[in-house]
């Protein structure tokens, strides 16, 4: 479904991604773990077009988002195609980034109505269903400032889902939340996993990654160090670095 190969990205000469290749298959949940600064978030941001890669190739459902030409420069698809590809991808941020001046309902319906061109009534119907799924059916008229962090993040998930993306990316979705609120957000993501939603989750919640992910990717220093089933990566890591990282979390 998503195929990324040999991705390079540096900021001001500082190499952050050094040749990352991976793929996401339909219905799969991929967890990306690794120490801070390893490039996990940058990778997600590159795939979601928030950063432009220097080199490499990314395709989404066989449509080329970016490829590298003969002189080694990344060439992106034209605007129209990028817009099309973008709508197949959803991203949930660590800091929610809800629109504070919109109610919960408007937060969820604004893009479907003004980007996807869905009718207002239809969008509201979809939003209400999503809010039920998120356990927030009574919050449609609330404003983000009146919600807890966990509720905000669930609204953000609903907002991303409202565009019916093929893949949903999470960039440390619970890192800004306390343990109890983390639980309610993870519960929602787990539910989505059971519905076979294709997801890529950058997370520090090792227990969650182990339980929900079909595949775990361990990144360090801009490269993928190890990749495999949770079983393989957590119980039987083949790489020294992975072992050290996971051991640090078990303590």
């Amino acid at each position, binding site marked *: 479904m998503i195929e990324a190969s040999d991705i390079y990205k540096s900021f001001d000469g500082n190499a952050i991604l050094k040749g990352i290749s991976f793929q996401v298959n339909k219905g799969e949940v991929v967890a990306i773990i690794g120490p801070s600064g390893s490039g996990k978030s940058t990778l997600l941001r590159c795939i*979601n*077009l*928030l950063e432009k890669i220097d080199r490499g190739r990314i395709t989404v459902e066989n449509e080329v988002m970016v490829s590298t030409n003969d002189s080694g420069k990344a060439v992106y698809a034209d605007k129209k195609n990028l*817009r099309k590809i*973008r*709508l197949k*991808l*959803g*991203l949930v*941020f660590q*800091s929610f*980034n*809800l*629109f*504070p*001046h919109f109610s919960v309902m408007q937060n969820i319906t*604004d*893009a479907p109505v*003004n*980007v*996807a061109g869905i009718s207002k009534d239809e969008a509201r119907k979809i939003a209400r269903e999503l809010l039920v799924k998120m356990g927030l059916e009574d919050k449609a008229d609330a*404003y*983000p*400032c009146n919600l807890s962090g966990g509720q905000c993040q669930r609204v953000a998930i609903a*907002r*991303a889902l409202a*565009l019916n993306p093929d893949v949903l990316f999470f960039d440390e979705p619970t890192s800004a939340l306390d343990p109890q609120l983390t639980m309610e957000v993870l519960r929602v993501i787990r539910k989505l996993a059971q519905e076979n939603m294709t997801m890529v989750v950058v997370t520090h919640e090792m227990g969650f990654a182990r339980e929900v992910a079909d595949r775990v990717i361990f990144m360090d220093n801009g490269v993928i160090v190890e990749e495999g089933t949770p079983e393989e990566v957590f119980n039987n890591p083949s790489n020294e670095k992975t072992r050290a990282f996971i051991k640090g979390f078990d303590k």
Partner: protein
Amino acid sequence: MKLISLLCNGMLVSIELFVLTLLFALPLGLIVAFGRRSKNILISGITGIYISVMRGTPLMLQLVVVYFGPYYIFERTIDRFTAAVVALALNYAAYFAEIYRGGIDSIPKGQYEAGEVLGFTRMQVFFRIVLPQVVKRILPAISNEVITLVKDTALVTAIGVAEMFKAAQTESSRILSVRPLFVAGAFYYVMNLVIERFFRFAEKKLDYYK
């Protein structure tokens, strides 16, 4: 009674000046703010100089230059009132531009990114997501400028526009009394009282979110 109707006529001109200036300066300021924020150093440089000059020289001098400048340079005259509106709008746009810029810069990057990943165009992100939040943040600063503008309309007497202050001054020296000036002062104050109320109302209206 005669005094009141005299001043009222002047006040209409003042209000006209005020409204027209805002009508041009508010959008122009936004364009200048965009220019100031531009990555193109030529554009940001030019708008930077524009703001610096407009804020760094007397408004009264600018009025005189806009009115008499065309005469000296092209030997053509322009209407006094038009010159007054042009000078005021150009001057206020500079101040508004800096207020907008501060407001725009204060919106977290995450708001743009969230809009972007939801597929909004850059225009949509700005007008649907960023600008409404900017307006809330800059209202107090804008109200300062708007109130100052009411008082600055009196400066256009420098190029002979017959607005309220001019009318009061003329009447004052004609009847040898300070009363017309006091009444004019009261008129200005009432106008600003209304404006103050308006902004307080607007701020309250936008108080529904943090």
